[in-house]
């Protein structure tokens, strides 16, 4: 996509060393000249978690695939603070939250083990604005060893993006699970 639009592309870049008025300097001596420097940062663990015995080498919390902290099954961990959450995207946090809900129900005697013990199978789920009334829809688990790889681009994904935005504000950011299922149905079955 970048090639077709004439966008320049640099991969395997080192750590960012510094931003200056004229661009970005990288730790290996490379640089990129730029007026606007649009950057996403490193995601690091919170200081209060970093030295816990349940933290990994970077301070993220180690869990099993049922989102229980290793050695401490009474601690559930979900979202970006969990070591297993890679990449750090909301869709995987949502999947983990549903697992935690089922595990709590299991411990409270409200759900049987067969139903509750469904481990995390992460799926990268992303709908991104492309401008000009178009968007892309990505749903894939291939990076983790699964077989699903779906990519759709065009005006229907843009409508899904806008619907998600409306749902986000309407629910005060507490988007209900049916929104993801509805987007998946629309992206896979409607077009």
């Amino acid at each position, binding site marked *: 996509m970048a090639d077709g639009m*004439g966008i320049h592309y640099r*991969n395997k870049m080192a750590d960012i060393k510094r931003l200056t008025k004229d661009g970005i300097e990288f730790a290996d001596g490379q640089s990129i000249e730029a007026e606007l420097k649009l950057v996403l940062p490193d995601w690091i663990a919170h200081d209060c978690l970093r030295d816990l015995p349940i933290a990994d080498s970077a301070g993220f919390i*180690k869990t099993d695939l049922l989102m229980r902290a290793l050695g401490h099954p009474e*601690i559930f961990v979900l979202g970006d*603070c969990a070591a297993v959450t890679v990449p750090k995207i909301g869709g995987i946090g949502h999947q983990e939250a549903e697992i935690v809900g089922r595990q709590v129900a299991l411990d409270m005697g409200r759900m049987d083990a067969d139903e509750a013990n469904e481990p995390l199978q992460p799926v990268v789920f992303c709908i991104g604005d492309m401008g000009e009334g178009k968007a892309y829809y*990505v749903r*894939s688990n*291939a990076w983790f060893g699964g077989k699903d790889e779906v990519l759709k681009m065009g005006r229907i994904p843009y409508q899904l993006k806008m619907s998600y935005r409306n749902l986000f504000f309407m629910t005060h950011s507490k988007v209900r699970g049916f929104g993801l299922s509805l987007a998946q149905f629309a992206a896979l079955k409607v077009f």
Partner: protein
Amino acid sequence: MLVLGVDAKTVAFRPTERPGEELQKLSYDYLVLAMGAHLAYDRIEGFAAHGHTVSDLFHGQRLREPLFEGGYKGGPDTIGSARFHQGDGAEGLQPYPGGSIPYAKAACEGPVREMTTVMASYLKMEANSSPSRITVFTPEESIAADAGENNIKAS
């Protein structure tokens, strides 16, 4: 939260509704940790003076100023991710048969991809400029590697 005692099953925290609030302590039978992560803009030298991003309203508004209120000269521009330093905590997990939780070099590149396509559209439609003024960069072999190889080739 300030201190978590995983063996004593206690959490010490300070309410943040008003500055100066006292330390509180709770004990628990179960604990759910859903604290997110620290987006380390504060570890990028020069970001405050020279960087932009879109991960919150403050920075989004700050980006709007040169683009919509004047001052933007038309580039060149660059968009990309700082390197993510993943720990070893997901090693050995197998979410799918034969699969793993891979080591990522970028925490999340969906925003980079989205900003790139939107900025390309903006340059073309609004700024009388060209997407060729953009350089996108990634620490990975390819941008949004987690979307799957076939999706990357198809896009």
